[in-house]
């Protein structure tokens, strides 16, 4: 069945329509009306998810122009990102129905959430360095509003302020890199740049790569550009924390990876060996993230630091792929991106439920909360152990594939990277398991309270999916594999 690639604009259109509808719906409505806004936002997320699923299954691919001018490309990578973003978005907006019901200003919340998701979906489809940047900024600007959502409190405001300044610096730096590329190559089209890229002399491509890595890497919270993340991710409303940690920073990472693709000469490996640099940064990122998470007493802050570590794992796979051309690295990283979205998204939602229940993020005061909220407690255990890479939760197989990439590459350095990955997995147990111990097993006194299904259902669904994908990984791996195909075409490999 040959379908024009133009239909691939559907998920993006649905999300943008959702922005308008939810804005109109939410204006002035509180209580019951607010619940309906949340449900309709979930419905739009679901429609976008379903359309992306349909397009993926039908194998719609190819280039097309959005609004007649913006070059886009439909393909496996775009669909994977769209499915993750809208899938998690669906869980988050459903969760927010009760969680956010009493908050003022919902006409900002749901439209910004949908807009941020649209930006992420756009990143997947963008086929041009500049439109890539525009979608990236769309995502970023929407997220500023969401982090500083609760303007009555000092903490979100301060965190939002830091986030804007840091992220703005990053965007500026990345834009400078893009300008440098455009200056030398005369085009911003990703496919053409691969051909033209040979014309960029190393003297120019080295600073350009440096600027792109720092600029987009800041958004992806690669160490040493990570300092804004713990504040922003822990101060935001929990649903937003789930989105930020689950998919936004990963979208930043994919933006980086897509933009770095232009420096790869088709059929060969990059002239400037930035893959090795990425792998080194990856080891630094995972180690620092895990060490910083060790002493956290604030549950959401701990999860935020662990996101930094997880970005390190994902970055390692891509780094190995850029440096050694190993396909398993791409597959592992993309699969881990999916798994991390489920696990960390779910973990933040569970943490939000605990916060809603007990009014605190302090791990000591949350002791035993998993017994009064058993579904969230058990799910949290699944997420935490999955994040540590314990089977049968799905995180282990993706980590294993990344490790396999190191051995596929062969040699002493890749082996070092694999050992660093494995050692970090053990290190991360030192905070995940005590957190599980504290929340699920320890004694604590919490009043009985009814937990609404709109909050429990998304958490339970993500936990279930984490186990199912761990035991039966063939289906998600097929989607991942077709996305890896697109990436390997950039590398010019098979």
């Amino acid at each position: 069945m040959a379908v024009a690639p133009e239909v691939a604009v559907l998920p993006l259109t649905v999300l943008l329509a959702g922005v308008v509808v939810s804005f109109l719906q939410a204006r002035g409505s509180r209580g019951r009306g607010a619940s309906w806004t949340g449900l309709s936002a979930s419905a739009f997320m679901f429609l976008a998810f379903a359309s992306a699923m349909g397009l993926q299954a039908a194998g719609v691919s190819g280039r097309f122009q959005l609004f007649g001018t913006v070059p886009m490309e439909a393909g496996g990578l775009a669909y994977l990102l769209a499915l993750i973003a809208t899938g998690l978005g669906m869980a988050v907006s459903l969760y927010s129905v009760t969680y956010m019901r009493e908050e003022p200003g919902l006409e900002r919340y749901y439209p910004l959430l949908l807009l941020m998701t649209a930006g992420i979906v756009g990143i997947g489809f963008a086929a041009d360095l500049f439109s890539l940047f525009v979608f990236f900024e769309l995502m970023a600007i929407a997220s500023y509003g969401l982090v500083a959502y609760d303007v009555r409190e000092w903490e979100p405001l301060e965190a939002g302020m830091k986030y804007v300044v840091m992220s703005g610096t990053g965007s500026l730096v990345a834009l400078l890199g893009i300008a440098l590329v455009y200056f030398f190559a005369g085009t911003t089209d990703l496919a053409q740049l691969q051909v033209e890229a040979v014309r960029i002399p190393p003297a120019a491509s080295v600073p350009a790569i440096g600027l792109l890595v720092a600029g987009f890497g800041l958004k992806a919270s690669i160490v040493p550009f990570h300092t804004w993340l713990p504040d922003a991710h822990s101060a935001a409303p929990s649903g937003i924390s789930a989105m930020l940690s689950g998919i936004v920073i990963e979208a930043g990472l994919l933006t980086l990876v897509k933009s770095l693709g232009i420096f790869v000469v088709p059929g060969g490996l990059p002239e400037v060996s930035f893959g090795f640099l990425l792998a080194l940064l990856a080891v630094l990122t995972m180690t620092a993230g895990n060490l910083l998470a060790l002493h956290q007493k604030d549950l959401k802050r701990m999860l935020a630091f662990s996101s930094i570590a997880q970005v390190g794992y994902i970055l390692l796979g891509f780094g190995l792929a850029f440096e050694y051309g190993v396909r398993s690295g791409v597959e592992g990283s993309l699969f881990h991106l999916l798994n991390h979205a489920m696990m960390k998204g779910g973990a933040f939602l569970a943490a939000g439920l605990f916060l809603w229940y007990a009014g605190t993020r302090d791990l000591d005061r949350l002791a035993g909360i998993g017994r009064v909220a058993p579904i969230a407690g058990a799910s949290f255990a699944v997420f935490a152990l999955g994040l540590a890479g314990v089977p049968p939760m799905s995180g282990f197989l993706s980590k294993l594939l990344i490790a396999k990439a190191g051995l596929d590459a062969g040699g002493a350095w890749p082996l070092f990277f694999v050992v660093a990955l494995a050692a970090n997995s053990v290190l991360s147990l030192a905070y995940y398991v005590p957190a599980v111990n504290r929340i699920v097993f320890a004694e604590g006194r919490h009043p009985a309270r009814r937990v609404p299904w709109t909050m429990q259902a998304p958490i339970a669904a993500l936990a279930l999916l984490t186990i199912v994908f761990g035991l039966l990984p063939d289906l998600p791996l097929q989607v991942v594999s077709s996305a890896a195909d697109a990436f390997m075409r950039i590398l010019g490999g098979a």
Partner: protein
Amino acid sequence: MTYEVFAVLAIFAPLLGAGVVPLVGLASRRARDVTAIAFGLVTAVATLLTLLAVGPDPVRVYAWIPILGVGFDLRVDALGAFIAAIAGTIGFLVVVYSLAYMRHAEEEGYSLSRYYALVLLFIGAMIGLGLSDSLLAFYIFWETVGLCSFALISFYHRDAKARRAGLKAFAVTRVGDIGLLVALVALWSAGGVVTFSGLDAAGIPRDILGLAAFGFLLAAIGKSAQVPLHVWLPDAMEAPTTISALIHAATMVNAGVYLVARTFPALEALGWWPQALLWIGSITALVAALSAYAEPDLKRVLAYSTVSQLGYMVAAVGAGAILASQFHLLSQAIFKALLFLAAGAVIQAVGTRDMYGMGGLRTKMPLASNAFLVGVLAMVGIPLFNGFWSKELLLDAVLEHGFLAPFLLLVVTTFVTAAYSWRAYWLVFHGTPRFAGAARDAPRPMSAVLVILTGAAATSWLLLGPYSETMAATMPAYPVEPLGLIAAGVAILRWPSGLVPLAVAGLSAYFVFRYGPRFERRLREGSAYARLVRSGFLLDAMYNALARRLADSAQRLRSTQTGDLNINVAGVLGGIVVIVVVLLLGVV
């Protein structure tokens, strides 16, 4: 072959049970207990029927992950089927024993639904581990076993010590699991090897094979609690005694010995690998036995004794004596389950694990006393009990292959084993009672299990003939000869390998009864020996220092998280400069 259905049933019946039991538990406690027993029984029967299905070839049960070329393959040969049968039957006995033993826990507010679900999951994962040919499935089962042990060791979660012990067990064994992960990935990457049966030394580059061998070794050391990663097992005694029995006899520590036995034919070619097994095994055996002698805690004595017995088995695999190692594994599983469950009855009756708070129980608890005595006789290796046959067979094989030094270490261990076993028996059951209140023998289900295990400890050696024949028939790649009882008897009684250990064990009994009391006083006062043992032969102290060092560096790293925007933005710019410099270094 249609018998494979038993193997599949053996794996998935307990896993299903783990899901069903808590659901039934919502309705009724009694129905839940019956359901747990029923699933345990089905599992035990299925594992025994699986013994009929043994064959040399792997079977693909399910395509599983075609995109990675990984299937769910089972390999039901004697090695795996016996591990599964041990897990299934002893697991079932433990579930029955738990009916009476764990009742008090429910009254104290611990959820028995969780308990039974985890126990069944534990058993199912161990059976799956034994029967999997697919390395990925093996890895999943392996880690699930670790996860269950963590959750069950910290079952009494209100006790901070139990929670800490669970964490320690999980973390230490995970260090070993890195090895398994690296081995698995290395084999997959280098030769496309994704099954045990596909593991063939010929097709794999030597350095990759070495890496994999090291990984498997590390994994086995962690899981089977060998030196230097044995420190988690004694602490794991915070678990309910039933769980200790399960871990020591059926579901956890056997996995490491199984793994090295399973991979032996492919890795034997690496000269250092069998040597490493021999030395690690025999040193572990001795160190753990010495530790056991200084323990005042009954359960910790038994824990160290398991570590020591596992050392024997690992050394035997190193000597290429697969049959002896696995046969000893069977003996150990039976007599250790017996010892733990007898100890459980005693501990419940007396209310302490401290042997200095027991004494004189021989007349008050005759059943437990006799059961424990049979366990001791089997562990020490007194003729006609199962431990005698398997241990002598094992020692004989080590000497026959010309490994004199490890053999001598193991003979010395036999002396110490006899010493700590007699000491424990004497402290618990003889002398004057050192506790208040009355003690009686355990209620019926517990006693029934003790009787069954006592019988098994006295007779399981009769299985040697069929055991060795099935092994020889279904494991062509392994150095196993069929061995009749008479031939085994002749081999065992040959000078010096057979009679020396026996004489040593007898000598040891004399020394314990003659000089034991005086030595005991010194131990209680805290002699240098006792202090050395309590620091885990300095290893525990070392690991703690390492963990502290790590925690400190994490603490110091936090100071970089200043929250000052100016510094952070400056950091970004500095980062760019560093990146560009690194890239330029790469170009030039």
